[in-house]
């Protein structure tokens, strides 16, 4: 973990309880300056609660939180935040709303209008400056809110489920903008349960389930680590015997025949060596194809969440 001075966000043993439910349990987390980190987890895992504590919207029961070296309350002008619950003043005009939010974030009035117009062009919302927010589609409103979060050029951008509810075209626009902001040197911390986008965007992922952190590593390491845990084998002869013989190789935890009836996936036991298993498999029967499976973040997510008791916990009620 990087030193505190290098961290944009630093959580140490943070705990939050709502009634009888532990929303966040002993969470330690560090988001390095300039990085793009994804906070992953199933619904009700505690992602939004963690983010709200980071934003000082709710207070942690215990533990410490530092944002940009201080308290988020004192750093509001340096933080951009897109909450999970989307909201705009429905009767306000888009330009007026963004002007209002810009002023709240301390942007000088001079040049604010042109800055807003520039950003509207950038996120492909030209011509809506004078439209009322209620006249926009849900996706367009979401983009306006995203703009309100980044309009003041914050050092840290916290996005809670930024792509949920967006169609593929609008999602692509936002993903591209997030990438650009990251390239400009901003620290980005986003929560999502859309693994494909997280895999595409994030340098590092943190997975929490039932309020506990169960994974914290770079995306490439996670893919690498879980890729070596499965081997795909396609025997030349499609016989039941070959299926049974592969299952008997030492270090194979389980086997699964694919729907195509030809391919078999061997799950590698935790302590076993994938290469040894591949050699043993080749020695056991002739293969048309044998390769180390490349895991997707989605598969990792499902596997880890399942291993940690699923995500059956009810969503927290009471706090928005």
């Amino acid at each position, binding site marked *: 973990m990087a030193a505190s001075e290098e961290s944009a966000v630093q959580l140490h043993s943070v705990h939050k309880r709502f009634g009888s439910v532990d929303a966040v349990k002993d969470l330690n987390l560090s988001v390095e300056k300039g990085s793009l980190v994804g906070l992953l987890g199933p619904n009700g895992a505690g992602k939004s609660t963690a983010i709200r504590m980071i934003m000082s919207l709710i207070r942690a029961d215990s533990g410490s939180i530092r944002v940009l070296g201080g308290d988020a309350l004192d750093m*509001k002008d340096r*933080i951009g935040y897109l909450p999970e619950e989307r909201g705009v003043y429905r009767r306000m005009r888009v330009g007026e709303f963004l002007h209002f939010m810009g002023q709240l974030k301390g942007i000088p009035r001079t040049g604010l209008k042109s800055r807003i117009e520039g950003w509207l062009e950038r996120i492909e919302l030209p011509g809506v400056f004078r439209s009322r927010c209620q006249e926009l589609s849900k996706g367009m409103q979401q983009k306006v809110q995203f703009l309100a979060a980044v309009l003041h050029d914050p050092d840290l951008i916290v996005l809670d489920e930024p792509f949920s509810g967006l169609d593929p075209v609008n999602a692509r626009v936002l993903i591209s903008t997030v990438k650009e902001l990251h390239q400009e040197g901003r620290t980005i911390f986003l929560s999502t349960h859309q693994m494909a986008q997280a895999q595409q965007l994030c340098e590092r992922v943190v997975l929490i389930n039932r309020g506990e952190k169960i994974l914290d590593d770079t995306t490439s390491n996670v893919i690498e680590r879980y890729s070596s845990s499965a081997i795909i084998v396609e025997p030349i002869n499609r016989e039941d015997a070959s299926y049974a013989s592969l299952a008997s190789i030492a270090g194979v935890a389980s086997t699964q025949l694919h729907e195509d009836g030809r391919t078999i996936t061997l799950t590698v036991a935790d302590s076993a060596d994938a290469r040894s298993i591949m050699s043993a498999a080749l020695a056991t029967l002739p293969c048309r194809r044998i390769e180390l499976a490349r895991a997707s973040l989605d598969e990792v997510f499902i596997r880890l969440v399942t291993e940690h008791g699923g995500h059956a916990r009810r969503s927290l009620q009471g706090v*928005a």
Partner: protein
Amino acid sequence: MARQPKGFRLDRIMVVAIREFRSTVFTKGFIIGAIAFPLGMFFLVALIPMLMSDHMVPITGTIVIADEDGSVATAAQAAFDRMRDEPSTLGDSARDLLTSDAAPDLDDLHVLSDVGTTVNVQVKRLSITSDLTDVRAEVQAETLLALAEIPSELLDADPSVDSVIALLVPSKTSPKTTALLSRTIRDATVIARVERTGTDLAKARALVRQPKTDAARMTREGTQASESLELRLFIPGGFMILMWIATFTSANQLCTTTIEEKSSKVIEVLLSALSPTELLAGKIVGQSFVSAIMLATYGSVGIAGLAFATMLDVVPLSAMLMFIVWFVLAYFMAAAIMVAVGSAVSDLREAQSLIGPAMSVMIIPLLVWLPISENPTGWLATVSSFIPPIGPFIMVLRTTGAMEPIPLWQIVGSLIVNGCATVVLIWLAGRVFRIGVLMQGKPPTPLELLRWARAR
């Protein structure tokens, strides 16, 4: 719960205040309901008499008066001639009615509206014993203004109460014309009756004229203070209702906008930019501007009304200045209550259950208006002045209506008590607001509200 930064940022508070103000004031509902309607009503009230005076139909023509000896007809002609030559006598009549101790009847009220009417009536005398068939035909044909038959008994020194004057007018005659003719003939009958007895009419009038009363109250200090029904009843009530309307229109708006911000989920976006206390302060300040505009609008209309009625001097300047102080306290207390309610609930329906108890307290000033105006220094007035949040309203009733000064200790004491209550209520509202704005789901119980207020 949302936490607080180290210090307030006034610039952000003002940004919120200006948005709150604009979103309320620049709406059709506010402009029409709160500004245009009262101003329109005022101008209508002021303009209608002027417009009506331009459209008054002149009363001209001949009236036949059938009496025993022509004395009523003579007196009536004299009265009509006076109305023609001196139109202001109609106004005199109206003013006499205003200052009379006797309650005016329907005809009198019509005479009040006759001010400015041109009157040119000729009286034709006939004997009461004449055949009036042709005259009635002329009335029906609208060639005569009216036919009045005066029974002889009405001219006796001891007139029969059962006899009445029969006044016949064409069907299209306006009620105002009928009333004027009726009153003039009644007056003429009385004049004729008095003259018949040989009594000097001017002396008789002077003898029966009711003197005016100049009521004064002896104060505890032994000085005399003047007594005025208008001053003690309607003006304090007017000031108190003005303050009530201005206060609760804005406080209600505060509750509504807070609920809207919660339900539209924009609240979390706002709290990412400023603290709950800054947001609360901005909203309350913004709505205070709205309230001030309403106060200025309605107040100007009221003051103009007082000036119109030449009663501007009845409310001293000091009472008006104190009114502003009481208004500020009343507004901030009401605003604190309503914004706390708005932050604690998710929709207007839920808000009603919390607003109900609060409003049942806040309508007390309206209920005690009359007893307190009746006795502004009594125990009810004194005690209720020290009970927040109704204290400021009660003090307005007392200070604008009392004929003798309210004891200084009561004014200062009420200011201190209500001022402290305002601070405490705003503090409590802030505590509830910082938790409530982020809460969803069922509204809190009073016990939960208390817990929110005590939370770190």
